């Protein structure tokens, strides 16, 4: 048993224990806190799987902001669960047990955890990890490179894409190479024989797709290859915010502001908050901008930004927050984020490319265009996420004070 398995077993035992505790505990306050702990434990599990971006999101969203929002909800529904006479619902138990059994049954034929021969590790995905999807195998495209296309600059990437995947998945030498590759010791390989693409238009992408600007392959996957999905994930967040306003906001004539308690006598809290808020904001912007290089991006950064505003509201009162971000402004900004994202896509389309083909933003250096587009959409995501979180918080606080 190696260290990874040992740590995983320990963490998953704790996760299970926390899950049971969440169900068992009668105080809703305690179970809200426990969900935060659950998320933090899961974040550690993701770290153990080397998926830092997922871990970061889990910590920021699950451990951070959703706990705040859950506790905000408790103010309305009360801290204690209503006593239920019959605690065991037999059909529900049977159904849940069957679902769980099916889930486990389904794992029996899954590729083993971390198996380098699993389909996911050698079909389609290596090209994404190597960021060579657009310019397959470095072969020059049928289209002439555009004016100012720096061929020399891309030549250094040609060495990356060598060595076919063996037909026999049990080829041990190849497996070893693959393990080295997962450890980051050698660069991933790309299948030599590619099926031809439907259209030759892809070849505008440079050999490494992003001119080496985006070392974090998670970001390239989320914001470029599957950027269209991410646009709609952002829209999901936006929709949640708008639906909440639609359902819960009071008519405007009653006014936004029902001032809650302000912690004016808590000197230490006020000083600490004043000191830390600028750094939280800075960190939020850093996470958004830095998403191309390391773990992070619009979602995580947006949540971090939102916590700065929420902290401000908690310590200095919502009247102060509304002077900084009046509700009409935050309402508007929730939409502006998605509009930045979809607008970037639309601009690419209006320039003659496909929707979200960022390389159109800089035809001379398509990889730089990709990088620029990704930064833009990450900011779009960040704005929407932070403002929706703020809107939800405001809405909960609003209800509380009336």
């Amino acid at each position, binding site marked *: 048993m190696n260290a990874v398995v040992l740590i995983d077993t320990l963490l998953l035992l704790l996760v299970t224990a926390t899950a049971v505790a969440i169900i068992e505990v009668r105080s809703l306050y305690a179970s809200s806190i426990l969900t935060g702990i659950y998320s933090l434990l899961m974040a550690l599990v993701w770290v153990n799987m080397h998926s830092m971006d997922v871990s970061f999101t889990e910590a920021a969203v699950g451990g951070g902001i959703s706990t705040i929002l859950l506790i905000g909800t408790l103010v309305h529904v009360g801290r204690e669960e209503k006593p239920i006479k019959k605690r065991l619902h037999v059909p529900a138990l049977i159904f849940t047990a069957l679902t769980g059994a099916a889930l486990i049954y389904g794992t029996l034929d899954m590729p083993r955890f971390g198996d380098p021969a699993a389909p996911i590790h050698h*079909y389609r995905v290596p090209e994404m990890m190597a960021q060579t999807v657009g310019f397959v195998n470095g072969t020059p495209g049928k289209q002439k490179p555009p004016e100012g296309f720096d061929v020399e600059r891309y030549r250094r990437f040609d060495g990356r894409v060598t060595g076919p995947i063996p037909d026999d998945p049990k080829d041990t030498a190849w497996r070893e190479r693959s393990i080295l590759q997962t450890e980051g010791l050698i660069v991933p390989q790309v299948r030599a024989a590619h099926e031809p693409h439907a259209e030759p238009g892809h070849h505008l992408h440079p050999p490494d797709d992003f001119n080496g600007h985006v070392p974090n392959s998670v970001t390239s996957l989320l914001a*470029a290859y599957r950027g269209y999905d991410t646009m709609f994930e952002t*829209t999901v967040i936006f*929709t949640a915010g708008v639906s909440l*306003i639609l359902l819960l906001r009071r008519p405007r004539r009653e006014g936004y502001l029902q001032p809650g308690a302000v912690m004016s006598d808590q000197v230490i809290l006020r000083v600490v908050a004043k000191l830390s808020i600028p750094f939280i904001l800075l960190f939020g912007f850093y996470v958004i901008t830095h998403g191309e290089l390391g773990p992070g991006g619009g979602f995580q950064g947006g949540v971090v930004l939102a916590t700065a505003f929420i902290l401000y509201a908690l310590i200095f009162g919502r009247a102060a927050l509304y002077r900084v971000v009046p509700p009409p402004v935050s309402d508007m900004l929730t*939409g502006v984020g998605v509009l930045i994202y979809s607008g970037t896509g639309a601009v690419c389309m209006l320039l003659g490319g*496909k929707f979200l083909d960022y390389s159109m933003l800089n035809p001379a250096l398509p990889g730089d265009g990709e990088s620029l587009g990704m930064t833009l959409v990450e900011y779009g995501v960040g704005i929407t996420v932070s403002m929706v979180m703020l809107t939800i918080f405001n809405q909960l606080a609003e209800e509380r004070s009336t």
Partner: protein
Amino acid sequence: MLDAFEIVPNLPVLVVTTPLIGGILTIAMGRGKGPWAWATLITGLVFYFTVLLMQQVLAAKTGFISYELGNWPRQWGIEYRVDALNAFILLTVAGVAFVTTLYAQKSVEKEIPQDRHNFFYAVWVLAVCGLLGITVTGDAFNVYVLLEISSLTVYALIAMGKDMNRQALTASLRYLILGSVGASFILLGIGYLMMVTGTLNMEDMHDRLAALPDAVHNRTVLVAFAFLLCGLGLKMALFPLHMWLPKAYTYAPSAVSALLSATATKVGIYMAFRFLFTIFGVGFSFVAMPANVVLSVAACAGILVTGVTAVRQTNLKRMLAYSSVGQLGYIVAGFALANVHGVAGSVIHIFNHAMMKGGMFMAAGAIMYRLGRCDLRAVRGLGKRMPLTMAAFVAGGLGLVGFPLTAGFISKWYLVQGALEAPHMWPVAAVVLVGSLLAVAYTWRVVEAAYFQEPEGDSALVTEAPLSMVAPMWILIGASVYFGVSATFTGEISMRAAKSLLGGAP
């Protein structure tokens, strides 16, 4: 900058991004009629795009149009793929969305607080965006993402029912819980498939599954199949997983009921088409796995049980909701036959039912608009007071029965033909006929109340609903009659869709 841009090659993505961007901008359209006018403009534009898209698909030599988002090769990025089937569904959804938006103005004015019309129409347009996005895509995960959008928006729209009373809220909450369970099952199914195939593109996934040695005994694939079937069953309200639907449709705002009944569950069925036929393939779903037996038993039971339940209802909207579950049963029973006529009947009934039921919910909404309720008692004597509305309701009801010269007749013709062609499937044909008798029963109850009973109370004083409600109602009902008389277009498209789903020539 615009000289390099052309509309036609970008149609598949314009169908979805127009309502996305338009939906967000709806919020900025002020208080008065602005949001409604803007939503009408956007849905009208989208409808126009789907018409153009339909023309393109019919003209395409390959039988389909492919659009690679972000210009990434489809196997790695996300592909939009439009063939005869989804072009037809897109046209139906966008058309109904446009007509219901026209209809919505008056009823929304009455049912939704004035100060949040802009948010209401924003969510409305985003719901249309989600439904169209599910229909246009050729990527399994993209389906799930858009499913989230359509579900979230629909929960919110339902909860807005009747000044947000408790019943609308609980109906919405119930749908939220069951819908989330369904969506989780779908997500798990997609995840398991991704693990086995290493890809998310539908066509690619199909090829990989077909190449998988012994896929029929691969336990991961089997569980994925079972989960997808459960999740899709919940989403398309297949009996007995339909428990969320009646209350949701009954308590939702009138315009929302009309929109949902004609589009939301239909898109669920479209997803089932894609997962069962395109990804798993007919051989896996219907030959190796007993999906045809499971689905046709559930569908037939649904037709009979909900038919009987519908007869016993006194609330018009609830009666229509139960009838919807039964009609969805016809659609499911059709494609479970897995032969050309069965699948074609299923596709054509998606369109026909959208027209009829959309129109009937609009009629119920018009009664609601005038009287504030729509139970059988309120309907008494309305045949004289609101002749156009009641005539529309009856014409739609005749369509549900499958009366000749209505669209419902065409659907049932295909279905019965398909059932008789398939081996040992004649009971389906029998159930279709019994279901029609049940439809006669519940339609008759309304006819009796409206034309053979005297009005009482405020029913005696009402006048016909405003033109802005009656006209859209008759557009849909008129379409259902027109396509009942002349079914060449719908018939050809659905035969073509059926053949391509079953793996023949497109």
